[in-house]
């Protein structure tokens, strides 16, 4: 804990709640958006509630803008309403008995100017409506406006886009981005959609089973997933085997050569589908990491072909459409599958 | 969904079971499960409660009170029940008017008067040393109570009031004489019209207003026997007990007078 930290939020949250054993340390810089991702039950929402002071923490600290809300040896815990943290709930949670404008005005001073906010979030046509008359997308915009109108030092968003359909989503995402930039507040965004996380956040925190498994920029996460869950999320190929020196051997006898050294014991191998190359002839220069596999299925996605192969290795390869048109990707055909050793992420698994 | 053998879902079965149970319950209510049809049914005016209970307790050994169902209510209510078809073998009512009405149904033998009691004005325990007269009670400082006019005790009180030129509008009309007495005993009202017998039965220290002239007004009790009896022997035995030595002794103990 560093009290002179320039971070907007500096917190360590330790608490036990049911099956969940949460121990998270995180920071958010001024104007920064940090996304929190993780499987269900990882403690994402609990973490937000703890930061708000809605769920008590058992140890750790919560500092916002150098105000100490909770810290070891401090008896007095700052109540939620004095924390100046805004919260946007998954379902918006607008007050059903109040019109949109009354909802937005709930936490504001009488003469606060909301013009820019209402314009950015396109709320003017909704002002006189009741929450029950709004669509899911409109509800989330109003919920965000209500939160930002109270001028919080920081905004917490709990899956704000989860209930929106795909078409409304990118529009809402853009609005949230603009609104967050305008408000200059920091934000913590819980989401399960990597598209939201990577579009809105400068850093992404991966929370699994109450622990942080990775905390880095979207590029870092994309380039080097550190856990099975993230690798799956990115659509990566994941294998388990036994590490020895720089290689990992699978039960099937397949051996991966990696750029790592000193691997030993149980290890996980992660390979991005875009790092997997297909050749009709066996490549001559690179004898390692080459296997003869058969095509099972081909899916054409946005700008690329995703090829599912089987054989000694079950693996996905992402091929550009140009490359795909040169190759004859008929199911049943055989191809040489190769991966550069430097493109293979290998990681020793902690034994517990 | 789990399907039972006969093709009904468990949910539908529950509904059917519920329906059957309801039918059973309804038929029970309408046909009278558990009504003791062989018992002699006695309808008793509420001011006779003590008497009939004691009579049954004392005379029970003789068998007269065996299998006796006692229904206690105000005389007016009893009449309403009988008029609406309730079966009564023996009816004990207060006041001659109600007896006449009962007679008009034609279902009963001519009544027999067996006791009478007088009207009393009674004051609350904490007023008994103040030596109050009726005029004092009507000075506006005191709250009074009497029976509703449909009860014989209420009729007596209003006859008394008419004779004395007293305005009864501010008195609370209680459902029966027991309620009047209870309120006087607790001091919730200052005075009230009850029967002399109730005054005697009270242990709470209430006192009678002397020289009020209320004792000139009295009501009589009589019984009538149904002329459509199923168990005439039992009913006969009960009426014999009332008019006989046992009944008269109990009446005297309770402070009733001979008619």
């Amino acid at each position, binding site marked *: 804990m560093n009290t002179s930290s320039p971070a907007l939020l500096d917190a360590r949250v330790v608490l036990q709640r049911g099956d969940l054993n949460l121990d998270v340390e995180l920071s958010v810089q001024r104007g920064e958006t940090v996304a929190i991702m993780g499987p269900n039950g990882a403690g994402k929402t609990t973490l937000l509630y703890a930061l708000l002071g809605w769920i008590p923490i058992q140890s750790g600290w919560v500092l916002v803008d150098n105000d100490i809300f909770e810290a070891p040896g401090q008896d007095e815990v700052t109540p939620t309403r004095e924390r100046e943290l805004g919260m946007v709930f998954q379902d918006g949670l607008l007050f059903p008995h109040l019109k949109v404008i009354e909802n937005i005005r709930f936490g504001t001073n009488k003469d606060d100017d909301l013009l820019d906010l209402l314009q950015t979030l396109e709320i003017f046509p909704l002002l006189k409506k009741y929450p029950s008359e709004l669509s899911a997308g409109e509800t989330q915009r109003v919920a965000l406006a209500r939160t930002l109108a109270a001028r919080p030092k920081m905004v917490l968003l709990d899956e704000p886009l989860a209930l929106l359909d795909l078409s409304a989503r990118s529009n809402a995402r853009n609005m949230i981005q603009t609104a967050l930039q305008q408000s200059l507040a920091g934000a913590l965004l819980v989401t399960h959609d990597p598209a939201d996380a990577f579009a809105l956040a400068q850093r992404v925190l991966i929370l699994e089973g109450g622990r942080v498994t990775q905390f880095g920029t979207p590029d870092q996460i994309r380039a080097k997933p550190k856990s099975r869950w993230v690798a799956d999320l990115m659509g990566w190929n994941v294998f388990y085997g036994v590490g020895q020196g720089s290689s990992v051997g699978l039960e099937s006898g397949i051996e991966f050569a990696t750029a790592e050294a000193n691997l030993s014991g149980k290890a996980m191998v992660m390979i991005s589908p875009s790092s997997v190359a297909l050749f009709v002839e066996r490549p001559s220069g690179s004898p390692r990491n080459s296997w003869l596999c058969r095509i099972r299925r081909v899916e054409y996605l946005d700008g690329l072909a995703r090829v599912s192969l089987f054989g000694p290795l079950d693996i996905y390869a992402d091929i550009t459409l140009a490359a795909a048109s040169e190759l004859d990707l008929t199911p049943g055909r055989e191809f040489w599958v190769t991966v550069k050793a430097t493109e293979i992420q290998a990681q020793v698994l902690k034994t517990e | 969904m789990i399907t039972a053998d006969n093709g009904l879902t468990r949910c539908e079965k529950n509904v059917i079971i519920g329906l059957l149970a309801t039918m059973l319950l309804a038929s029970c209510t309408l046909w009278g499960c558990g009504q003791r049809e062989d018992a002699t049914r006695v309808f008793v005016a509420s001011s006779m409660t003590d008497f009939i209970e004691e009579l049954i307790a004392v005379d029970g050994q003789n068998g007269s009170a065996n299998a006796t169902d006692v229904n206690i209510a105000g005389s007016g209510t009893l009449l309403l029940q009988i008029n609406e078809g309730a079966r009564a073998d023996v009816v004990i009512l207060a006041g001659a008017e109600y007896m006449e009405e009962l007679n008009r149904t034609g279902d009963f033998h001519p009544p027999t008067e067996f006791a009478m009691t007088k009207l009393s004005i009674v004051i609350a325990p904490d007023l008994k040393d103040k030596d109050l007269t009726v005029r004092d009670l009507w000075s506006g400082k005191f*709250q009074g109570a009497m029976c509703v006019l449909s009860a014989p005790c209420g009729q007596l009180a209003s006859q008394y009031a008419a004779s004395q030129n007293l305005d009864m509008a501010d008195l609370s009309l209680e459902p029966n004489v027991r309620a009047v007495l209870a309120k006087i005993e607790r001091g919730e009202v200052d005075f009230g019209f009850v029967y002399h017998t109730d005054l005697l039965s009270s242990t709470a220290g209430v006192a009678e207003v002397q020289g009020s002239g209320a004792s000139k007004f009295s009501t009589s009790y009589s019984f009538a026997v149904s002329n459509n009896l199923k168990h005439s022997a039992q009913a006969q035995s009960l009426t014999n007990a009332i008019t006989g030595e046992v009944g008269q002794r109990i009446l005297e103990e309770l402070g009733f007078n001979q008619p």
Partner: protein
Amino acid sequence: MNRLPIGVRILAVLSFGFVSLPLLSLLWRVPWPRLWTLVASDTVTDALFLSLTSSVFAALLALALGVPLALQLSKMSGFAASIARAVVVLPMILPPVVGGAALLFAFGRNGLVGSLVADVSGVVLPYSISGVVLANTFVALPFVVITVEGALRAIDPRYALAASTLRANSSAITFRVVLPMVRPAVIAGGFIAWARALGEFGATITFAGNIQGKTQTLPLAVFVALESDREAALAMSVLLISVSLIVLISLRERWWPVR
């Protein structure tokens, strides 16, 4: 539209018949040609006026007392809450007459609190319209508490969290969020309390007495008349039923918690 199983529909019809049949039979007996003359008497108009005023005041008082109680109960859990809830609901279960007697012991002239109040302020609650309102409130209060607390517990607690993050303190959460959200339940509770108070008999006659023009509400007047003048009693019942039906039908959704 999705239809209910036949069994449920049959039961629904039976139960509606069970409720409406006695009411129809009552209307069957009403002396319609003489209705107006019977209803226009002083006794009836006094009683109607008294019933309407006292039941409205009782409903308002039950709301004023019941809503804070419901708020408190909704925050409580565990054994203490179970006990508190059982005590609050007791007046619903208690025979109203017992409730009236209990009120006398507490607020009567010689009651625990009543004697103190009488000494200090000279106000005596029984035998006054305040007594009627108090008795009605006593029996109507549980209906408000149950209705409102049920609604309070159904509110997502995150609404309070949302309000807190918008800088609302506890009174803002209560008055700007929670209470407005349960407004339909508060209104419904008020109407159910009013309906209960309008028909209240036992606690009123026991606690407030039965003085014509002062504490004799319509149900009390019906009771008095039932034994002396059946036709008048029926006429008053029709009046009571009509007034209630007019109010309940004209306010439909406001008292029946639809949605």
